[in-house]
């Protein structure tokens, strides 16, 4: 992509835009074995790109930190990183009308703690939670829960995104529970060839919430966001997103869309 000079040629030219994605957030977005971007978020954006003849998307893999700063500064026009919506973030970024996807968050627990179904239960039990990277959306979810339940908070710790292996930590007893997205849990434990399939009888996944995820746009990119809205609406109607959800998360999360409150 070296067409840097032709931005000025006019509105009728195809506009190249950079879409950043979190390169290490499987299955939402990651770099596959061939070095190509993929994942639910990325694939949706690829479909969006196909529907927008005036735009050409260039996908740039990077980390959360760079993505956030880059989109804010305009280095990237938009970014996808399984981001949730919060009031505060609207000051920094432009959220479009249409959400991008759904994310199921749940607690990974030892079999004997199967009865813990919600964050309230978890907090009441006084259990310890595996650290979550500070820039991870899951961190926000727990933090918001804690803000809403100051008298019964979950013990929340920030940590590194790479060094915490939730299933292992829970199973070995290092922590009592961990937050996970359903997809990864499926692929690790439930799937026959999953690396932790032998632990299937020892750990459980209890979903506690399904949340909408959003692409983040640079504040100047109102037109791009509007174009995105149009395209995604169409994709939703065509049930394309449900297919992708099935493909990447092993489950059509749109089935429970009615019960999603944020």
């Amino acid at each position, binding site marked *: 992509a070296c067409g*840097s000079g032709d931005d000025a040629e006019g509105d009728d030219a195809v506009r190249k835009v950079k879409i950043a994605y979190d390169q290490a957030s499987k299955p939402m977005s990651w770099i596959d074995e061939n070095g190509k971007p993929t994942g639910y978020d990325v694939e949706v954006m690829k479909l969006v790109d196909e529907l927008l003849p005036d735009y050409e998307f260039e996908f740039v893999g990077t980390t959360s*930190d760079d993505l956030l700063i880059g989109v804010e500064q305009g280095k990237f026009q938009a970014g996808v990183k399984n981001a949730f919506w919060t009031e505060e973030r609207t000051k920094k970024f432009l959220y479009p009308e249409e959400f991008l996807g759904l994310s199921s968050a749940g607690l990974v627990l030892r079999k004997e703690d199967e009865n813990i179904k919600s964050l309230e239960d978890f907090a009441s039990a006084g259990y310890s939670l595996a650290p979550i990277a500070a820039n991870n959306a899951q961190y926000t979810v727990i933090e918001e829960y804690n803000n809403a339940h100051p008298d019964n908070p979950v013990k929340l710790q920030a940590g590194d995104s*790479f060094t915490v*292996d939730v299933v292992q930590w829970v199973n070995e007893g290092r922590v009592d529970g961990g937050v996970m997205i359903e997809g990864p849990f499926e692929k690790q434990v439930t799937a026959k060839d999953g690396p932790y399939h*032998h632990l299937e009888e020892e750990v459980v996944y209890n979903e506690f919430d399904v949340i909408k995820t959003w692409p983040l746009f640079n504040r100047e990119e109102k037109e791009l966001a509007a174009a995105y809205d149009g395209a995604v609406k169409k994709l939703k109607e065509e049930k394309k997103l449900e297919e992708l959800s099935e493909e990447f998360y092993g489950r059509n999360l749109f089935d429970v869309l009615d019960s999603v409150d944020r």
Partner: protein
Amino acid sequence: MIEKYFDPSYIWTAFSQLMPFLKVTFAVSGLSILFGTLLGLLLAAAKLGKSTAARKLADAYTTIMRCTPSIVLLFLVYYGVPFLAGQFGLNLHDVHTAVFVVITFTLQFAAIMSEVARSAILSVNRGQYEAAVSVGLSPLQAYRRIVFPQAVVVALPNFANGLIALLQEGALAYTIGLIDIVGKANLIVAANFNAHALEIFIALALIYWVLSILIEQFFSLLERWLGRGKRTIKTT
């Protein structure tokens, strides 16, 4: 318990996945070390020179560069340089990320090198310089032929410290999406949903270990070769 989570076969597959990215690590650190050393020597010259202004400037540079966390410096360069260039009508947004990484490492390595060089040069007895100029060498020649060769021996261990540390800064490059060997390890871990990260990191550690042994052997030879005629404090 351990066998549940630990599967050595991951180490072997990780090797073959990681090795190709070693060249990125080499390219980035090689360039940074080259430029950083040159800039570092200039700074050291300024610190040892007569000009007070140059000395103050070099000192300030060192303080700021050494005290800035690499990640902050990286973001400053990555966002700041294109922004500044933009003010002059240059569009640098499509420049390869490796360039920014090399600039960042160069700036930082130069600061470290300038102190390595300064302390090494100061450790060479002044009589050596005096004897050199007295036989008609210019000050530059005196430094190049007599002082440097002796200072280099002193500098080598510290230079190796800096060099080896730089090789490991791949995690930093990863932050802005440049995938070197550390970055690749992170990607593999992510692709495994964080399972078996221990094996991947062990593979990474082994590669680095071999690398550092090779580097140390090389420096050891260099030190012995350059250290001819040196009398050190050996207590036995």
